[in-house]
């Protein structure tokens, strides 16, 4: 071992002790002499497997998974019963549809898996360079083992998680972008592990690190770890050792699936299914009972003309009863249609294309349209009752503009870009009575702070993870201080006198949502060590000298009321000893293997104290396009909008006013730390009083819902701290459960604003509402990583393809480019999808009820012998061919009201709220309709068959003719019923409806026209043709179809006019007075309101 590294570097990422929760990696697979015996550790290889199946296990595994679905399993059981027991219908009748369903699903899943295989291969076969014994070896990515030393070049993606050992840059840094991981396109700096810089090839080291865990940001030495999926930038090449490979990389661990969301429609289907299962079982029971009652009469069970086989005679009576019961189940099982599941799936899958195809969702700025991540929830979009929206980036553009700043209580407002340095002028701030400006020195200190305290990078403009920072740096630029960039830990600033100032960047104390501030520690040329800190007022004020606060506080509050985002800036001189202490503290904390987060936080908090407040900044965040209109439309649609934001109350409140969530006459109920502050009272008591007061106001005193003539609008404001008080309060100390009270208040307010929310609290709120009485449908919309929790929690999660990365989009169910698209997504698409699928479901149950009911009734006339009324071909084809296409076309193209009309009249959305079309009322209507039709079909033909001589040559019809006549009436009636329901006849509807009927006629001729060699019985031979040759059959078909449809026609005519034109008339006449002014969103500045007067307390 000739190298310098004769001793083993223990890159002590976790101290010396070896724990079970850590892994030891031998760099370059070289054993360490100083260490104990070399045990080649076993880690997984670098293969990424996102696919589910291989060629070999596809069939069994896929089948297993498919039959785990309760519906498929049910049909499999029915099929098996048919195979085993002697049943009236051949196994083909249920086997064929089941086979079809299983095959289609298998093909779809197989295709998806093939795509995944392809993507996996692309990653796994990627060529990488491995350094092995001093040689460079090209390997496939999947062959990387933990401990391999890899070389990665510029613009390449890291093939696994690496510890950076060596960089081609002199300063031992490299830049990466994690755009594909979290969407942050800024360059992040990573550092080599100290002391490993020199000779990687002969480096002898072990690394001890944590076992793989998914948290992207909570990882060992984050500045040394390069994550798989990130891309190397601005660095020629690096060497690193693989620590986590394959499925253990952070990227792979982060792909863990979302929990499956189920739509309310699916729940309704399952409920209906249960009802139909009950009907099915009771039908079978009734028939079995009747059969044995009928058989008990002498001579009925076994007349001389119809003797049982020997086997039948010998079987046990109870076994016979059981098989009879099963046979009846099989005979009637068509009442629960397999095909409904296929059709629903197809409708959802195909229907979701209309969302991604919609050009109204296309945003020319980002060149993207809407994205549908799941098609299971299309109809849920039409059922939303609560919208939880993020503020920043969702309601607002997250496009920051520096508006003004305040230095030592003096207000500086930038007016004109063309003005000189002295255009840095002063307005009449309330505090600047003595001096016009703050001292020049203070000004420059403030501007330097803005220039230094950030993580912005310079590359063809500024790049940063947060747009605020760019706005601040740009703001400083306007006032003469330009940030030139960061080069090897040196920050350069061009100052007012065009001199370049250099600062050595010592530490960045990163921003986090808990601290709500960030700091940098820099050393100036003169050797001064300075800490600059910026952050939210609430997090800065307690940490600065109190005498400075008051001057600034007024500005900050005024700015916040104007709807600006404010940040306070503070600084602190660090003495050499202080710095050394901080420096060692930070280093130690960063290398900690456990509780790193907490340790770092402790050091941060320790450093960021006793600072001097310099000033504050105000940045405007513009409202999204049409944000106000969208919110108004949503409220018009009866949707309650809650704003959940991490922002300050004042800022958030002003945004709410700007979005017209709060209106001028809205009475604001405030439940915040401020209102809880009351002299001489405990906060808990005050909270109790307030809650009761608000509850009285909103719930008890509210006029009953029906007389909503002039009920007062309430807006509710709550902040994070108070919310946790409410949620964590134990119920024992009071008679009322705070949570319930709180929820009731919230639900009676038109809009609710929750500010100062941590991401987890956002999800908590969503969960609380989701689980409240009536389990309302919730929708969360957000754009940032902090919204992911609520997006995942809500019934429907919508991601905005905003500026804060892709995490929200990736975790969402639907992603849209802009907030304004939400209106069409809900009011247009959602409404239509709901109506379509609700009709689809009801229709399916209906058509199978009136399909099977005659078969059930026929049992009373054939000695309950399980004789099917229809031929097996008809039984099989009914749901697959004859009646499936029209309803599918309907459920894809129906627009009972045009989209424009839906968007114009938001109130239409209320009509389908609360699952209106799939509740028991409509279900009962459809069921009764089905029963009525079934009775008409069967008994109409029964009366006709009281004399079966129906042909003009005196010949008589048999049982198959009977079934065929009933079936013909059935097919025509259910299809025409759908035609009656169709309000939007495109050529496809015409084609499919008339085509299905024509196909039925054609098929019947064909099926009856040939002696099929594979059939044991030629039951339908020329039955259909003979039927058509009988005038009576024609007449009975016509009159029964008409009779069946009569109530339907009557119902359509007699209920409220529902055509689009009639509807328009109705809406105009009823809502004519409340015409909403369609003015564009006014800038926040223009808003003047006295929120104090509106606020209770």
């Amino acid at each position, binding site marked *: 071992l000739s190298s310098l590294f004769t001793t083993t570097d223990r890159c002590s990422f976790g101290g010396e002790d070896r724990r079970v929760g850590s892994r030891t990696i031998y760099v370059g697979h070289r054993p360490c002499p100083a260490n104990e015996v070399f045990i080649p550790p076993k880690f997984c290889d670098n293969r990424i497997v996102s696919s589910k199946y291989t060629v070999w296990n596809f069939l069994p595994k896929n089948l297993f998974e498919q039959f785990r679905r309760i519906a498929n399993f049910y049909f499999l059981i029915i099929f098996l019963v048919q195979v085993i027991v002697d049943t009236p219908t051949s196994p083909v009748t249920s086997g064929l549809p089941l086979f079809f369903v299983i095959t289609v699903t298998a093909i779809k899943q197989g295709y998806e898996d093939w795509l995944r295989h392809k*993507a996996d291969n692309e990653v796994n076969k990627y060529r990488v360079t491995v350094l092995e014994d001093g040689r460079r070896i090209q390997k496939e990515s999947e062959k990387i083992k933990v401990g391999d030393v890899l070389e990665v070049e510029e613009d390449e993606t890291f093939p696994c998680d690496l510890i950076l050992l060596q960089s081609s840059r002199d300063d031992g840094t490299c830049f990466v972008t994690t755009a594909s991981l979290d969407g942050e396109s800024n360059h992040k700096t990573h550092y080599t592990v100290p002391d490993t810089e020199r000779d990687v090839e002969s480096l002898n080291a072990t690394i001890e690190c944590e076992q*793989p865990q998914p948290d992207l940001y909570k990882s060992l030495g984050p500045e040394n770890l390069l994550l798989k999926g990130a891309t190397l930038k601005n660095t020629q090449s690096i060497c690193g050792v693989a620590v986590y490979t394959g499925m253990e990389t952070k990227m792979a661990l982060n792909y863990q699936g979302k929990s499956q969301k189920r739509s309310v429609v699916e729940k309704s289907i399952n409920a209906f299914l249960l009802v139909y299962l009950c009907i099915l079982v009771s039908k079978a029971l009734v028939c079995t009972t009747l059969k044995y009652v009928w058989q008990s009469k002498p001579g009925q069970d076994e007349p001389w003309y119809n003797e*049982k086989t020997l086997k039948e005679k010998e079987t046990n009576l109870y076994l016979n009863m059981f098989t009879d019961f099963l046979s009846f189940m099989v005979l009637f099982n068509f009442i629960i249609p397999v095909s409904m599941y296929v059709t629903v799936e197809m409708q959802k899958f195909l229907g979701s294309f209309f969302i991604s195809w919609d050009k109204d969702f296309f945003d020319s700025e980002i060149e993207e349209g809407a994205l549908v991540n799941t098609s299971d929830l299309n109809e849920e979009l039409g059922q939303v009752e609560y919208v939880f929206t993020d503020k920043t980036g969702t309601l607002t553009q997250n496009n920051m503009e520096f508006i003004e700043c305040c230095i030592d209580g003096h207000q500086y407002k930038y007016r004109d870009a063309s003005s000189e340095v002295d255009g840095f002028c002063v307005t009449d701030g309330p505090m600047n009575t003595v001096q016009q400006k703050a001292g020049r020195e203070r000004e420059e200190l403030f501007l330097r702070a803005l220039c230094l305290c950030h993580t912005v990078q310079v590359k063809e403009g500024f790049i940063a993870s947060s747009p605020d920072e760019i706005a601040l740096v740009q703001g400083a630029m306007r006032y003469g201080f330009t940030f030139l960039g960061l080069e090897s830990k040196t920050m350069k600033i061009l100052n007012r006198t065009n001199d370049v100032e250099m600062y050595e960047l010592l530490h960045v104390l990163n921003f986090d949502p808990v601290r709500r501030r960030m700091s940098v520690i820099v050393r100036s040329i003169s050797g001064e060590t300075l800490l600059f800190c910026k952050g939210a007022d609430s997090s800065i004020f307690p940490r600065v000298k109190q005498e400075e606060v008051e001057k600034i506080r007024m500005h900050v509050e005024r700015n916040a009321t104007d709807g600006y985002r404010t940040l306070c800036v503070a600084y602190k001189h660090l003495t050499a000893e202080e710095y050394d202490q901080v420096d060692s503290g930070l280093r130690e904390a960063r290398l900690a293997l456990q509780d790193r987060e907490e340790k770092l936080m402790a050091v941060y908090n320790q450093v960021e104290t006793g600072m001097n407040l310099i000033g504050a900044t105000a940045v405007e965040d513009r409202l999204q396009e049409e944000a106000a209109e969208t919110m108004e439309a949503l409220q018009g649609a009866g949707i309650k909008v809650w704003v959940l934001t991490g922002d300050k109350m004042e800022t958030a409140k002003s945004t709410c006013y700007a979005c017209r969530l709060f209106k001028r006459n809205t009475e604001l109920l405030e439940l915040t730390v401020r209102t809880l502050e009351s002299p001489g009272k405990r906060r808990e008591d005050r909270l109790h009083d307030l809650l009761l007061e608000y509850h009285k106001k909103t719930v008890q005193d509210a006029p009953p819902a029906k007389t909503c003539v002039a009920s007062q609008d309430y807006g509710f404001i709550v902040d994070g701290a108070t919310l946790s008080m409410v949620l964590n309060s134990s119920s024992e100390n009071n008679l009322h459960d705070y949570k319930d009270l709180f929820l009731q208040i919230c639900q009676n307010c038109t809009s609710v604003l929750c500010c100062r929310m941590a991401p987890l609290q956002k999800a908590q709120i969503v969960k609380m509402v989701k689980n409240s009485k009536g389990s309302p449908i919730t929708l969360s919309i957000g754009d940032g990583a902090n919204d992911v929790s609520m997006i995942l929690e809500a019934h429907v999660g919508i991601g905005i393809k905003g500026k804060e990365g892709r995490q929200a989009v990736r975790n969402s169910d639907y992603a849209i480019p802009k907030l304004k698209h939400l209106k069409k997504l809900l009011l247009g698409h959602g409404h239509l999808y709901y109506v379509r699928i609700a009709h689809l479901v009801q229709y399916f149950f209906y058509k199978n009820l009136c399909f099977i009911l005659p078969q059930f009734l026929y049992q009373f006339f054939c000695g309950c012998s399980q004789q099917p009324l229809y031929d097996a071909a008809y039984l099989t084809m009914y749901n697959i061919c004859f009646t499936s296409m029209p309803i599918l076309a309907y459920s894809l193209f129906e627009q009972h009201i045009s989209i424009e009309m839906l968007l114009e009249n938001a109130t239409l959305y209320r009509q389908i709220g609360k699952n209106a079309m799939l509740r028991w009322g409509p279900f009962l209507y459809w069921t009764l309709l089905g029963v009525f039709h079934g009775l008409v079909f069967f008994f109409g033909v029964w009366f006709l068959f009281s004399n079966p*001589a129906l042909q003009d040559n005196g010949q008589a019809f048999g049982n198959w003719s009977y079934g065929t006549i009933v079936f013909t009436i059935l097919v025509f009636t259910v299809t025409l019923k759908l035609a009656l329901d169709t309000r939007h006849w495109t050529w496809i509807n015409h084609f499919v409806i008339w085509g299905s009927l024509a196909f039925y006629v054609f098929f019947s001729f064909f099926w009856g026209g040939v002696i099929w060699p594979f059939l044991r019985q030629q039951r339908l*031979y020329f039955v259909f043709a*003979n039927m058509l040759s009988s005038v009576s059959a024609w007449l009975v078909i016509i009159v029964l179809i008409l009779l069946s449809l*009569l109530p339907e026609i009557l119902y359509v005519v007699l209920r409220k006019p529902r055509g689009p034109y009639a509807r328009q008339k109705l809406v105009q006449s009823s809502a004519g007075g409340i015409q909403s002014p369609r003015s564009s969103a006014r800038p926040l500045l223009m808003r003047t309101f006295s929120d104090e007067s509106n606020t209770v307390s």
Partner: protein
Amino acid sequence: MMASSYNAKEEDGHHSGASSGTGLSKNKKPDNTAFKQQRLPAWQPILTAGSVLPAFFVIGLIFIPIGIGLYVTSNNIKEFEIDYTGVSSDSPCYNCAKNFTWNTTEPCVCTVNFTLLQPFESNVFMYYGLSNFYQNHRRYVKSRDDRQLNGDLSALTDPSKECEPYRKSGDVSIAPCGAIANSLFNDTLVLYYVDSNNSKIEVPLVKKGIAWWTDKHVKFRNPAGNSNLTLAFRDTAKPVNWAKPVYELDPSDPDNNGFINEDFIVWMRTAALPTFRKLYRIIQKKSGTTPTLPNGNYMLNITYNYPVLSFDGRKRMILSTISWMGGKNPFLGIAYITVGSICFFLGVVLLIIHHKYDNRNTSADIPS
């Protein structure tokens, strides 16, 4: 550790591959086609009282006359029905019914007298009717072998299992097999007209044209290869309850013998309901103006072979004329008249509603 993370992935299923694949294609603007934008030109019918009203009246006006026509037609059909089961002791076939045994060589014959009050014009159709006879029982319906009946030679000697327990008699397979064939209706009905001087004149009964043409000519076929039916069926046994083998069903007419015997074919078309009638014979219309069956006394001579009392069944003989709508059935006429009247009535009601609604609507519109 590894296994658990692998499992976690299995649960989910949709990620990298699929999403990155779609991500690329989403980069271009969606096509502005009518189909993709859900803007296909469409006909949007509105069913309102106004548009449906005329339809109701039209339907009413069409259906009521049709109904009346049907009703009249049905009423004009002459039908005569007589039950000859022999349940009560005063009925002529009482003895035959009571003393029925399967193994008689001497058939029991009984005679029923009846009077037609009105003459039957044009062709008269003679049916036999059975009640409480479950030809639509599942065990019964499936107990046949259509391949055998179609002349398939292999099925002739090896009939389908569905025919059990009428598949084989000993070791010899039965032709035609199955319960349906076995229970072939085998009463012989002969009709005599008793004229004024009490002499019996036999009414000529035509036994052809009673089965569906396609059944007779395509679906049913005698075993191929041998024109001599006796030889063709030599390896088969007669059905248990038959008196004579299938090739002796109608020895007089080779076109009506064996499987293509029309009585047999008619029987093989199983009835829909437990009470049914089947065409037995046709009485052709005589030339000239004399009615086919003049009013007067008739005598029905029954060779009583078919027992029905064991299962409480009934046997009838029906004489009926036929119209273009088939046999006598007032149901269709009544149905049409009812539906037509309902439509007409609804039309009137709707007219009133429409009228009122319109008034309300216009009056509401005026102030706004």
